[in-house]
């Protein structure tokens, strides 16, 4: 077998996903920890002010990055529409409810909107997007296992915790189907017969308890599986060494530049408006 004749340490031998990764968009190839760092840089830079300019620049920058993550506006919408709607709704309420300084734009019944409050609302909506988009972009182009690799190997988080969480996340997907099954199983026992509102709540509580019991059982069986594979005792090796390379530094640098551009422009034009 080839492994005998070639006990290599070349990247290809160590990383069997190399060829699959090469086909990924640029951000898919970047180390997840670098992406996490970039996300933190942008988020931290944007939480201080509520002006529309810095948030607008950040959103624009983030939209320009989309192709690097293999996304376009349509696929982004499919992933992030609840966030977009939430941001718009937040912006709308801010615009309507904020005190009306400056010239009035319109007034319908109790709703009035001034220029000032409109800007405030726009700023609020853009900021929501600017902070949420990096996370959406990151999740779209990051394999959870590789994020766990990076967190355990590079960020030095305890590997029991990181890998335990990773394995448990798989079970969350199963819970949706389990909830439905338990609901049917309980109807077949006659639960929910009396039909009152309180009885309905009681039935849902019972169903939740059933789900809880089943989740714990599943989790403990999974724990046995992991323990039987030698998990959690003694030192372990990593089949997928997680490394930072030059490209990862560029991603971080890009995030710093974008954050700097957004905050800097805002400061220079006097739009910067610190919240407290």
């Amino acid at each position, binding site marked *: 077998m080839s492994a005998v004749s070639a*006990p290599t340490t070349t990247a290809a031998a160590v990383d069997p996903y190399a060829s699959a990764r090469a086909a990924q968009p640029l951000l898919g190839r970047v180390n997840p920890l670098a992406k996490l760092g970039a996300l933190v840089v942008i988020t931290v830079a944007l939480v201080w002010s509520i002006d529309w300019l810095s948030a607008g620049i950040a959103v624009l920058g983030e939209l320009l990055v989309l192709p690097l993550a293999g996304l376009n506006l349509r696929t982004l919408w499919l992933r992030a529409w609840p966030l977009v709607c939430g941001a718009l709704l937040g912006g709308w309420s801010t615009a309507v409810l904020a005190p009306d300084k400056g010239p009035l734009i319109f007034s319908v019944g109790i709703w009035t909107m001034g220029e000032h409050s409109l800007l405030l609302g726009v700023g609020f909506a853009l900021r929501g997007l600017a902070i949420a988009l990096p996370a959406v972009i990151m999740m779209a182009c990051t*394999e959870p296992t590789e994020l766990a690799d990076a967190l355990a190997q590079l960020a030095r988080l305890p590997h029991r915790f990181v890998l335990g969480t990773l394995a448990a996340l798989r079970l969350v997907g199963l819970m949706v189907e389990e909830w*439905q099954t*338990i609901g049917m199983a309980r109807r*077949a*026992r*006659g639960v929910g017969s009396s039909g009152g509102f309180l009885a309905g709540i009681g039935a849902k509580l019972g169903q939740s308890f059933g789900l809880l019991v089943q989740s714990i059982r599943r989790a403990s069986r999974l724990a046995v599986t992991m323990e039987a594979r030698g998990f959690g005792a003694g030192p372990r*090796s990593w*089949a997928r060494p997680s490394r930072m390379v030059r490209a990862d530094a560029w991603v971080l640098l890009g995030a710093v530049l974008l954050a700097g551009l957004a905050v800097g422009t805002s400061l220079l034009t006097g739009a910067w408006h610190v919240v407290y």
Partner: protein
Amino acid sequence: MTSTEVRPARVTARGWGWRHGGRGRAAVAGLDLDIEPGEKVLLLGPSGAGKSTLLHALAGVLGSSEDDDADETGALLVDGRSPREARGRAGLVQQDPETQVILGRVGDDVAFGAENLAVAPAEIWGRVRQALDDVGLGSLPLDHPTHALSGGQKQRLALAGVLAMRPGLVLLDEPTANLDPAGVLEVRDAVIRAVAATGATLLVVEHRVEVWKDVVDRVVVLGSGRQGSTGAGPSGVVASGPPSAVLDARGDSLAAQGVWVPGRVPALKGTAPRGAGETLLDARHLAVSRAAAMRRGFGSKAPAPVLSDVSLTLESGRALSVTGPNGAGKSTLALTLAGLLAPVRGAVVGSQALLAAGGSVPRHPEPHRWRAKELITRIGTVFQEPEHQFVTGTVLDELRFGPRQLGRGEDRVDELLQRLRLENLVDANPYTLSGGEKRRLSVATVLAAHPRLLILDEPTFGQDANTWAELGSLLLELLADGVAVLSVTHDADFTRALGASEFAAGSPATAERSVTVGKEGA
């Protein structure tokens, strides 16, 4: 290259016993056993004999921190060392495919065990590919998502994960109990191939002797140690030897203990019904999907059905078995007929006879529109996983629950307790029962509401021969009383014993198939 690297392990037990924390009775007591390196052994015994406990102990996962008042006696050794210290010498595959998968990609999942044993990264991927080849999954790309695998593939993946650890001892705890017949053979053949390639010692626990008897060197039978009507039974090893010799010499006593001995189908009390009954439930051009239950508000688009154009009739006193491979939509069909899922297309209609059964007559003839109280007196459904249907804290309350919901007397409760041998367990928590006891309880709770139609999803999965026979006899009795029985099952013996007609889901011919139960005569 593999065979030179794996050193088969030796198992030694001397007066070994184990009592779980908080239990009065030991799970295993006084076990003496020797398994030679490279030997392939099938471990048999009645439920409660401690077979799983032994496997867990050998895998080194017994006696973790949660179980600190557990009690160990004697010695259990792998290569002369305690299994907890011999980490990586033994690998375990368990029953539930869902909890055998750890990570999201096939390659990562197989590599997991080897990583935990601190194998060098460059060597791990060679082992991963070898292990996947050995279990017949070599054609899958390493980044194939594990959630897209079938049950049989998940079990083979688990086996590959174990093989990548290069264990000297492979432990299998009912690895095929949740699989359809094709999946059973698929997993068994993968085990044989892998063990032949590595030369590892093999220890299998399985109810189905038929599947394994030709591939193991030795059969070992454990006694339950539990007192029967005749006093304390033997514990520890009660028989050991070549498969045919043990099965010939001890076939009767094994069968009496509930072990599935090849060539013996347990006898049922009662006879299978014949002739036609009156129509209870009629399904016409039915299309079914689990997504139907999720459809609310926005979802105007009908979900894609998993099974469509099913027409069948259920008649009183007649049995029907729904058969077919995993994923063919059998359970979904049963749930739709049971009034628990709305049909995607077509209709399920209860006959006048069914509507008249029980107190208040439902306004609609379709079961999925009935209220829960109207449903349980007409159609009783027994789910594959009994725990899904437990709603109270004791066995007695479980049985009283249905009649109380209906405001009825509890006259049938005592009879059911006795009939299903649950009278000694009335105060027990349902979750603490054994697998067979849980199955009996789940059937009893549904029968307590006197349904005219009984629907069972895989009622015989993982059951020993005794529970199988009790269940079959009870169903024959119900059939004689005029109850209609529909079972989703892979179990051909069960179908035959009930004299059931068969509806094959998922075969190419199903698209236009329809059956009418009973009309053809048995």
